[in-house]
């Protein structure tokens, strides 16, 4: 299958710290890839580089065959890459429905429109549909600040999904979610993604989540990919077990 994302010699330095070191990798269209690694191994920096949050020191990022290196988050997003965050980035004073409607308005390029209502019927129906698919229908009119951590994580994903991305990057979608809810959260996300067939890359510390939901795993250490393959192979790899999982 064709590569949707191609990373060539990507490096990011923060002063003396080498956060991402000469990274080379490809993500194929339609894949669900899980990224594992210890804290500081460069996973989130990699996501931040791809989504334009920070600029690389050297290297190129190609998305659907086009060089997107150095583009702003807005430009990256409008090209079809969406992301969710480890700490959900939401409009906390607004309701879940209003958050979703703002994302739809952003996708439609209507942020400047000061005349037509945001809560127009067509957009409300679309927002209600995505919130229902993620199991947030009952809390659609609640403000973000009153949602549970799992609810906020799901809403963060909802804002990405309404953008109809080709590639979705999720940073620890179940962190902060209780053990009993983590599979429920991922089930809802993956079920919603199934209908859109979007290529998905997610960072995760929980190996149960990786085993259950990823088709392919990448192990990061010291800003490099130290192992790349099927989940079973990666979790059995002695180098990964020692440096990432902390097992002998």
């Amino acid at each position, binding site marked *: 299958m064709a590569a949707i994302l191609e990373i060539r010699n990507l490096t990011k330095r923060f002063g003396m710290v080498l956060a991402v070191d000469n990274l080379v990798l490809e993500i194929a269209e339609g894949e669900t890839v899980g990224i594992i690694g210890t804290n500081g191994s460069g996973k989130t920096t990699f996501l931040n580089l791809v*989504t334009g*949050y920070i600029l690389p020191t050297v290297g190129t990022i190609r998305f659907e065959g086009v060089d997107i290196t150095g583009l*702003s*988050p*807005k430009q990256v*997003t*409008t090209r079809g890459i*969406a*992301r969710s965050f480890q700490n959900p*980035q*939401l*409009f*906390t*004073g*607004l309701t879940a429905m*209003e958050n979703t*409607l*703002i*994302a739809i*308005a*952003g*996708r439609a*390029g*209507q*942020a*400047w*429109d*000061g*005349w*037509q*209502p*945001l*809560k127009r019927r067509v957009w409300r129906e679309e927002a209600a549909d995505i919130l229902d698919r993620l199991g947030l229908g009952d809390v659609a009119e609640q403000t973000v600040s009153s949602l549970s951590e799992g609810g906020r994580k799901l809403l963060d994903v909802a*804002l*990405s999904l309404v*953008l109809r991305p080709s590639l979705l990057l999720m940073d620890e979608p179940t962190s902060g979610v209780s053990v009993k809810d983590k599979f429920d959260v991922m089930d809802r996300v993956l079920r919603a993604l199934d209908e859109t067939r979007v290529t998905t890359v997610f960072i995760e510390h929980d190996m149960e989540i990786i085993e259950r939901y990823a088709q392919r795993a990448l192990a990061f250490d010291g800003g490099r990919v130290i192992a790349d393959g099927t989940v079973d192979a990666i979790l059995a790899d002695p180098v990964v077990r020692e440096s990432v999982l902390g097992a002998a």
Partner: protein
Amino acid sequence: MMAGGAGTPRLGIVAIGVLILLIFVAIPLFFSQWVVFLVTIALAKAMVVLGVVLLLRGGLISFGHGLYFAAGGYAVGFAMRFLQVQDLVLLVALAMIAGTVMAALLGLLLRRYRGIFFAMLSLAVSMILYTLLLKFYSLTGGTDGMSIHAFTVFGVRPAAGTTRQVLYYAVFALSLGVLYLGHRFAASPLGYFMKALRDNEIRIEYVGASIAQPIYFSYVFSGALGGLGGGLSALSVGQISPEAAYWTTSGDFVFVAIFGGAQSIFAPFLGSVVFEFVKNYSVKFSPDAWQMTLGAVLLLIIFFLPDGLWSFKDAASRLWARWRRS
């Protein structure tokens, strides 16, 4: 039951709205010229305050809206003096255009800034205009300013003694128009993006939108309201001077914005009317200490209604609910 339950409060709100409209319509018929003048000024300034509030909802404090207030006033003055324009509609349109054009130009710079930088930069530009208005004496009249002569309405000069009433109804009608525009703005994507801007700038870019775009368009709209309010105030007072662009004038608009509250588009109008009356009665009864009276009133508002005067209805609802429970 449900429909009736939901319909009753809505009917109550409509009834209160109609009552307030009737009171405003009746003011020139039952009150003195002085009261009519005060309400006219309050409504005109409320338009400027609404512009400040729309930016405030995005976390942007403009300490320079005196710039647009002055631009609107001087547009009326210049049009009367140099172009012999006397028609009220044309003068008001020119005032609004002056505010819009200035905001469209200045917005290109200000849309990049936030917080204290936005506040100070807007203040600095208004002070530049203040100085220019002082120095270009031959054009602007310097500290004396410019006199605004009597206006006509579609070529007809109001009958003697009715000018104030005609202007009152014109300002009142325009206030209703501005409230409608403000309502559309608040309910639109632009209005919501301004709220979103205060909550989370990062996410705005990650929904594929520009941060600068909503700021710019809101700023231009805000400037247009500033120009409109400035033009109407100048017509009402019959005079425009550089003081209109001075930082204390801009400070008054921010004061009234906080005084009234930022939750509703009606809040600036309530805040402005109350402010004008409190200020004028303070000056009347304690000419040497009116600022102290004004400060005390603001302190009371901050203590008892921290979200501004408009939040009185929430406080009243809470008291009513508590009284019913007891």
